[in-house]
């Protein structure tokens, strides 16, 4: 009976990741042919989504959690790619601190713990959000995380090559502060999260440099206002001015209803639209799209 009980524990229960392939396909191959009619319908929506995403920095909050876990895993991974849990430095200047290899213990040795050769599996990440207390930015501030500030629960997978490309989960009224010039803004997110990191992320790779695709469905709160988001967008965390939004439009008079997509890029003051016909410049502020020859259409 004991053997049965033990044996039953001896398997992984990996939940299926959401299928983001259609979204990635939509980014790669826009199907809509955009003109003044479509832009007149979606321009305000694009502008508002871009503003809320950039202001709330929700992508930064999510990616920072993923990066924290990646750092934990990296610190516990030795040069052979084995995960070393609960090992500590014996002797040397780092005596007593966590280690994954002797190289982490100058003049000492990394001993004890459990070594898992090339592990695969699933990681459930539980994050208590930092809340709106301004003191969190003060040096030495070390209050216990308060679940009243909301939580973020993410699922990551691990294979022998690194962190699996899709990370998914939910945020439950996750409150955080967005630092601004001279003041901070209260922000929150409540809803579903799915992230595509582009590929499996090996040990040591800088996630901040990756083009990351988000699919969010929920409510973004920023500075007292609420905004419903059901959007996919792409950012590179290290590129603070870049944002690409996937825009979905309904095909008129289609039965059953069908949708087409195009991409809208923001890069600083530059805006670019990419549809089935190619790439053109646009300006939401001036309500027009253009190429080298001049305005193509306006709305």
């Amino acid at each position, binding site marked *: 009976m*004991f*053997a049965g009980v*033990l*044996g039953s*524990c*001896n*398997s*992984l*229960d*990996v939940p299926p990741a959401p299928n983001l392939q259609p979204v990635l396909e939509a980014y790669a191959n826009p199907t809509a042919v955009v003109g003044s009619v479509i832009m007149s319908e979606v321009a305000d929506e694009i502008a508002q989504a871009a503003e809320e995403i950039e202001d709330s920095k929700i992508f930064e909050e999510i990616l920072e*959690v993923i990066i*924290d*876990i990646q750092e*934990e895993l990296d610190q516990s991974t030795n040069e052979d790619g084995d*995960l070393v*849990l*609960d*090992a*500590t430095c*014996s002797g040397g200047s780092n005596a*007593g*601190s*966590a*280690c994954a290899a002797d190289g982490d213990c100058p003049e000492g040795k990394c*001993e*004890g*713990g*459990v070594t*898992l*050769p*090339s*592990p*695969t*599996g*699933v*990681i*459930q*990440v*539980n*994050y*208590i959000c930092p809340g709106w207390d301004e003191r969190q930015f003060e040096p030495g501030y070390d209050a216990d*995380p308060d679940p009243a500030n909301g939580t*973020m629960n993410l699922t990551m997978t*691990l294979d022998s090559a690194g962190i699996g490309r899709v990370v998914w989960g939910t945020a439950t009224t996750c409150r955080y502060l967005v630092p601004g010039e001279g003041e901070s803004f209260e922000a929150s997110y409540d809803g579903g999260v799915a992230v595509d990191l582009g590929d499996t992320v090996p040990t040591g790779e800088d996630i901040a440099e990756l083009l990351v695709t988000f699919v969010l469905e929920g409510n973004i709160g920023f500075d007292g206002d609420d905004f419903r988001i059901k959007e996919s967008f792409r950012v590179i965390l290290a590129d603070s001015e870049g944002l690409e939004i996937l825009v979905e439009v309904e095909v008129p008079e289609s039965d059953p209803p069908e949708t087409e997509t195009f991409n809208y890029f923001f890069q600083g003051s530059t805006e670019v639209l990419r549809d089935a016909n190619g790439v053109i410049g646009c300006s939401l502020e001036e309500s027009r799209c253009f190429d080298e020859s001049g305005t193509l259409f306006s709305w």
Partner: protein
Amino acid sequence: MFRRIGNTLLLVTLLAGMTWTGMALDPEPARAYHSYEERLLNTTAYSLHRRRVRLGLMQLSYGIIDQLQVTTYTMPWILGAIFQDVAPNVELKSTFFDRRRLALSASIGFLTGTVAQIDDSKVRYFLLPIALASSVRINSDVSVHLGTRFTAVTGGTDAQAGDDPVAGAAVVDFLQLWGMAEWRLSRVVAFTFTVRWVPYVSDVVVNGSLGGNPSADLQLQAAVDDLRNAFAIIPGFVFSWDHANIRLGVGYSDFFVDGFYLIIPGDVLSNVAPEFDIFVRF
């Protein structure tokens, strides 16, 4: 530290004393020499008869009834005392069939203990071995013994590595097959040739958690390729005199540790697989 060394010395002294006492002061005449009645117990389907005792450096056994023997291995107690706490272990073996030339046995046991880590945390472990064995007496001098053992291992830790609390449990199962040929060269000397093989080792499954904020619950799986297809080929001898018995063998490849039910990969001990015990039976 001194207390731990003291415990260890006490245990070793007790074991040596018990073995010596068994050799010199056995209440019944020692039943040594290889005979129809006195058969090897390890790696065979045979067990001690009722009220028979086997005292040895490696294991202590007692026959509860003719078909049921209880054993405890000494090394887990001794090594457990050195590294943290004694490691209780018991194995019940029943020779449920023994007629004509064939004997069959089943056994089940457990081994549990803790190992201290450098950071003063403890790793707990629990092993559950289940074995089946058969012995065939080909003639009065030659016997063949075959067996299989499934061992389920689970371990856990509540640790504090550096600033990051780490806790978790690991599970691994493995299956061992063995075969032993026994040739009684004389009433004192028996030659044994043992082959052990591990055809199956499950992947290790670790359920753990990393502390802090964010915290992470880990459910990971890793292959234990070093142990898969582990084997040992061990020629040896069992000497049986009036009182004392000695089992001695040196083999090649991986080391199957008696009492711990575990395997040390061959490259750790330069592919030397020793086999040793000294014991009395009465």
